[in-house]
């Protein structure tokens, strides 16, 4: 099971956002995608999840071509995602935010659920059990009946990841999961991500927090101006002069990269917090 980008390309008019990116994502690993602002990291996530159309090339999961499918079809092929700006179902409860993910598998027998109360009760308990377990994993079990929109920002981030996991996806795409989180929350997130690693799951994290990326990722893809600049292990990335050049314009050590990334993260955090 692999997720493959074949000569992927995304173009807006004459502007090329993603230029001929080819790479392979393996299960059992956490893949990081990093790069300066506007490098095309989120674009890659959005194309994989079907939020953006692919201008050229192909995305495939196993033997199945994902690019060109509708967004919900891609989701039902086992690709789940979170968003750079949190997108929960704000007025639904925390529990309902997760329960609704059963729609694709359960809608087929919805008539039975409506007309036959015992069946509905069984389903409700079933859904609840699965979702409560996930909520407990993220420390959200006490918020189950609260409105999702009323949660503190950090909890909303966690809830969004929990929602992506309900269907036990084969591919998990996380778009800046640490944006706007404080130090304590980031530590918690890092621990959860490491625990989520599974031989049946491809995890891809777009992130500006270098500490998180370097500690949790097994492989890192570095994007620059829409091109794939470098890929390798965290150690290889830190040692690469190309990467340093891309981030700072001059060859510098990794600490400066971290500082630059932190500034960006602080900006994002301010923006993200303002939303709530």
């Amino acid at each position, binding site marked *: 099971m692999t997720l493959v980008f074949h000569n992927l390309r995304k173009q807006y008019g004459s502007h090329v956002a993603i230029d001929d990116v080819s790479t392979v994502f393996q299960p059992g690993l956490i893949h990081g995608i990093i790069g300066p602002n506007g490098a095309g990291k989120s674009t890659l996530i959005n194309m994989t999840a079907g939020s953006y159309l692919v201008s050229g090339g192909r995305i495939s999961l196993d033997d199945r071509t994902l690019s060109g499918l509708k967004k919900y079809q891609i989701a039902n092929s086992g690709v789940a995602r979170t968003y750079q700006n949190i997108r929960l179902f704000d007025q*639904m409860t925390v529990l309902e935010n997760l329960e609704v993910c059963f729609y694709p598998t359960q809608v087929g027998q919805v008539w039975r659920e409506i007309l036959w109360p015992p069946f509905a009760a069984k389903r409700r308990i079933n859904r609840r059990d699965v979702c409560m377990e996930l909520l407990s994993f993220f420390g959200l079990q006490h918020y189950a009946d609260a409105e999702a929109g009323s949660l503190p920002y950090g909890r909303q981030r966690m809830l969004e990841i929990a929602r992506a996991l309900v269907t036990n996806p084969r591919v998990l795409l996380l778009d800046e999961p640490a944006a706007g989180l404080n130090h304590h929350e980031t530590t918690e997130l890092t621990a959860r991500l490491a625990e989520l690693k599974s031989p049946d799951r491809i995890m891809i994290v777009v992130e500006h927090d270098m500490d998180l990326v370097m500690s949790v990722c097994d492989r890192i893809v570095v994007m620059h101006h829409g091109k794939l600049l470098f890929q390798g292990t965290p150690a290889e990335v830190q040692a690469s002069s190309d990467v340093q050049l891309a981030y700072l314009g001059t060859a510098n050590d990794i600490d400066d990269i971290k500082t630059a990334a932190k500034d960006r993260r602080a900006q994002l955090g301010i923006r993200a917090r303002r939303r709530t």
Partner: protein
Amino acid sequence: MSSVDTSVQMRMRGGRLLSLLILATAVALIIVTPFLPNYYVRVANGLLIYILLGIGLNIVIGYAGLLDLGFVAFYAVGAYTYALLASPQFDLHLPFLLIVVIAAAVGAITGILLGLPVLKMRGDYLAIVTLGFGEIIRIVINNLDWLTGGPKGIARLDKASIAGIELARPTEIYWLLIVVVFAVAIFVWRMEKSILGKAWAAIREDQDAARGIGINTTNAKLAAFATSATIGSIAGVIFAASQRFVSPDSFALQESVLIVLMIVIGGIGNILGIVIGAAILILLPEVLREFAEWRILFLGLLMIVLIIVRPAGIVPRTFGPEKLIRGLFGK
């Protein structure tokens, strides 16, 4: 800790009392109404039909979050289905229940036909298109003289009858409506609680994120349109059978607006709210009959006050039927 416990207990006891009070009042009203003079029963019948319409439209507006201003079209479709199949117009006299089934099917199909072109629209654009759809249906009915009798309408419709029992007097129609309203309310409530209802809520909250978790929003929305239209159409059949006369005047734009107002004022997305909203908007004008032209002004003022004081409606979304039941059994 103990003070917390007592406060919870007290709140629960309060909830129980409130639930009991609401249910007792409702049961009393339902039982007493048919013994009142015919005028009151007729008003109650009107109210029940509007409750039915409100429950139907609420699926699209309250659950799926799609502002539909042309709902009256489905009401008209149902009413005219009955008028054409049970009147001297074409000398067809099909049984009432058969017509209900036919009207439900025709309603569902019309709902899907309206739903298909507006799938990509939301908010204001959707409102304008559905508003246009409502008007189109009314104008078509007004002009298709050979079929619908045009502005004159169709008169001398058959009396409704089920299994040989005639349903024509106001009290008979009343009991028919009570049964239908309860059946539809329970059905729709169960729908809201089902996985489909949750998908509607997700679409309402964030359509794109709903697609992102694998919801085929096209199908879910069409299901909402179809169910809602079916209920509107059934309401139309009962309306036609109780009036035994239909004309395009009954299906003007203001009817659609009235139903939307019922939902917004009573409590959007909540069946109990619709009952309250309908009661206010249908009963108040009757009560205020003596003040003739002043009553519209009064209603307008009331609406402004309500929208300011309770922008989410009189009954909040969270106070649904399950709250009432849970309150009753103290759980």
